């Protein structure tokens, strides 16, 4: 080939100036995306990372009792520790007690083993009068927890800076005295029930939404424009209406003296003085969530069905298929992308649902997100709320990943 290069008008090789222009265009596009990207990185992506970090961060206690943990390193965990350890604990605890900063310590250690809170509170009161010798005896005389090896083991277990104990708790597991993982007592296994219930509700709400949405999406997609636009309002008006308005309308409908119960009594399905409880249980959650999430199923289904030509069904029938076979063999497979998108959307939204279960679900209808909110707002165990949130997030991302493998995420259409 000749070595001759094509030059642009200002004498620069064309290839070079094209590359330069290309780079400039790339940079311009990046600069447009830049502001939002940085904004989300700082206010959203890092905070989610922070949440993961909080769920395993266990440095607080190490910072509060540095001497104790150094002294405990040499301890074998068989018999009660030596005087040295008790002295180190005195050195750590005395300033905390004097500065009235020991409250967080009770709370944290009591998660580890119940009994710590009362023991430490009593020690807190008595420690001012301790003499500066024979610490072991004085501690042991103050409260019985200091006579027990288990409490020292539990204390030593909190030494690592990072701990996945909150994740175990979220799965109803815990560390036993020897540091092995075991199930918590049968009557305290609340989280397993919550996870199962959340999955259960999400699954059934998705199924109900699908069964209700499929026929009406089909109708909307096949009716002439002027009728379907009118009926589309029935789908879009709830979609645009505030979630709380829709939830409150269900509270009106499902209450004991409400219209639905009136209807049931009028139909003779139940006696007037024995009206069924429709709210504050799983029934209420199911019904209200299905209605609220229905538009999210209808819109993707409709947008896919709209693109299916009616002549395909006619062709199937003219080739001898009954309407049913034509539907099963032709129409249904073509709607798969819409079904996938709708089910994914409804399932993901309902798995993280909060408002409606909290208002119409009552105690037996509350879901995992209600527990997260409870630990955020009431019990203030933020590390545990973070751990539950992370578990939920991992679950949701797994579902996306599976969906992407099976259907392809690009097939999602949002109406």
């Amino acid at each position, binding site marked *: 080939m000749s070595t001759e290069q094509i030059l642009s008008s200002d004498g620069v090789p064309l290839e070079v100036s094209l590359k330069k222009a290309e780079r400039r265009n790339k940079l*311009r596009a990046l600069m447009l995306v830049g502001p*939002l990207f940085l904004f989300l990185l700082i206010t959203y992506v890092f905070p989610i990372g*922070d949440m993961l970090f909080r769920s395993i961060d266990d440095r607080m206690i190490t910072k509060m009792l540095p001497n104790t943990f150094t002294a405990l390193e040499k301890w074998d965990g068989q018999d009660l520790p030596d005087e040295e350890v008790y002295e180190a604990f005195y050195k750590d605890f005395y300033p905390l007690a004097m500065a009235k900063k020991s409250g967080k310590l009770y709370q944290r250690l009591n998660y580890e083993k119940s009994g710590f809170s009362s023991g430490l509170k009593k020690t807190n009161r008595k420690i001012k009068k301790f003499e500066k010798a024979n610490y072991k005896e004085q501690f042991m005389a103050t409260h019985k927890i200091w006579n027990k090896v288990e409490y020292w083991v539990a204390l030593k277990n909190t030494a690592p800076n990072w701990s996945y104990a909150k994740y175990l708790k979220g799965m109803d597991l815990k560390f036993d005295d020897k540091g092995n993982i075991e199930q918590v007592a049968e009557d305290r296994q609340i989280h397993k029930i919550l996870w199962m219930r959340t999955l259960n509700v999400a699954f059934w709400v998705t199924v109900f939404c699908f069964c209700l949405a499929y026929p009406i999406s089909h109708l909307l997609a096949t009716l002439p424009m002027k009728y379907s636009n009118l009926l589309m*309002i029935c789908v879009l008006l709830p979609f645009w209406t505030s979630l709380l308005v829709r939830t409150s*309308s269900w509270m009106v409908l499902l209450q004991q003296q409400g219209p639905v119960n009136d209807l049931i009594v009028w139909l003779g399905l139940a006696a007037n003085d024995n009206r069924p409880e429709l709210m504050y249980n799983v029934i209420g959650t199911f019904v209200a969530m299905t209605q609220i999430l229905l538009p999210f199923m209808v819109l993707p289904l409709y947008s896919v069905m709209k693109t299916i030509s009616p002549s395909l069904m006619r062709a199937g029938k003219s080739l001898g298929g009954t309407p049913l076979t034509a539907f099963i063999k032709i129409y249904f497979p073509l709607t798969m992308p819409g079904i996938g998108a709708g089910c994914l959307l409804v399932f993901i939204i309902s798995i993280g649902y909060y408002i409606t279960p909290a208002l119409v679900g009552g105690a037996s209808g509350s879901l995992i997100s209600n527990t997260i909110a409870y630990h955020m707002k009431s019990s203030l165990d933020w590390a545990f709320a973070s751990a539950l949130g992370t578990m939920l997030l991992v679950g949701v991302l797994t579902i996306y990943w599976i969906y992407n493998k099976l259907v392809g995420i690009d097939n999602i259409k*949002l109406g």
Partner: protein
Amino acid sequence: MALPNYTPLHYRIWHYTYLTICGLVFFFLIAPLFVILPLSFNAEQYIHFSSKMLALDPEGFSLRWYKDMIWGTKNPWGLATKNSLIIAFFATIGSTILGTVAALGLSSRHMPYKAAFMALLISPMIVPLIISGTAIFFFMAKVGLAATHTGIILSHIILGTPFVVITVTATLSGFDHSVTRAAASLGSNPVNTFMKVTLPLITPGVISGALFAFVTSFDEVIVVLFLAGLENTTIPIQMWVGLREQLSPTILAVATCLIIMSTLILVSAELLRRRSERLRGINR
């Protein structure tokens, strides 16, 4: 839909069953909203249809709950409405500007790693709200913006931008780029081209994205629940608090107002969608 005369009976039966099922589902979708309307005009304190209401006696109806909503003593709705509007207004402006600019970049064919950026930018819409709320709360508490309007506005910008990004990229996907090239060849600089050529053409998409962002902010409960102090209460928070205590007719009056608002939003969104389709139709 009338069926032709030769339709066999069993198909006829199936067809009408199908229509009935569809009718019931539409009823299930829309009827709950209309239960609220008459009950908000109830003259009594209880939330059920009184015998006077069923007999359509004018005495059964009154505006007392609307009066209570506006003039009632120690009523939170005034403050809540003010806060909601302020927060939604600034959140909408913020998400619309950030989202539109980002969508312009994302739709450029020179954009590298398009899919990855898109996934990140719309992630606040995909991740369950309770998780976003938790994470955002930690951030706002750390930088000292908890219980401030600024904090809530910023969080709503986070939650609102994905909708703007999606609607504007959708509008831009049907956009004919030769018009911007034509403008450039006629000597217009990029900013001028954007303001005079691109923006007018994508305005319907931008506005419908803005509407989404507005509704997201106006309707958002979880983040505000975590972040808000007494001073930052919003309409959804007041409804939430009210519904947790007791279902009062005043809440139904507020709900009726919100339904009217959402009807207006629906109508404008629908008009915008049609206009956008028309504009894009001309381009093709």
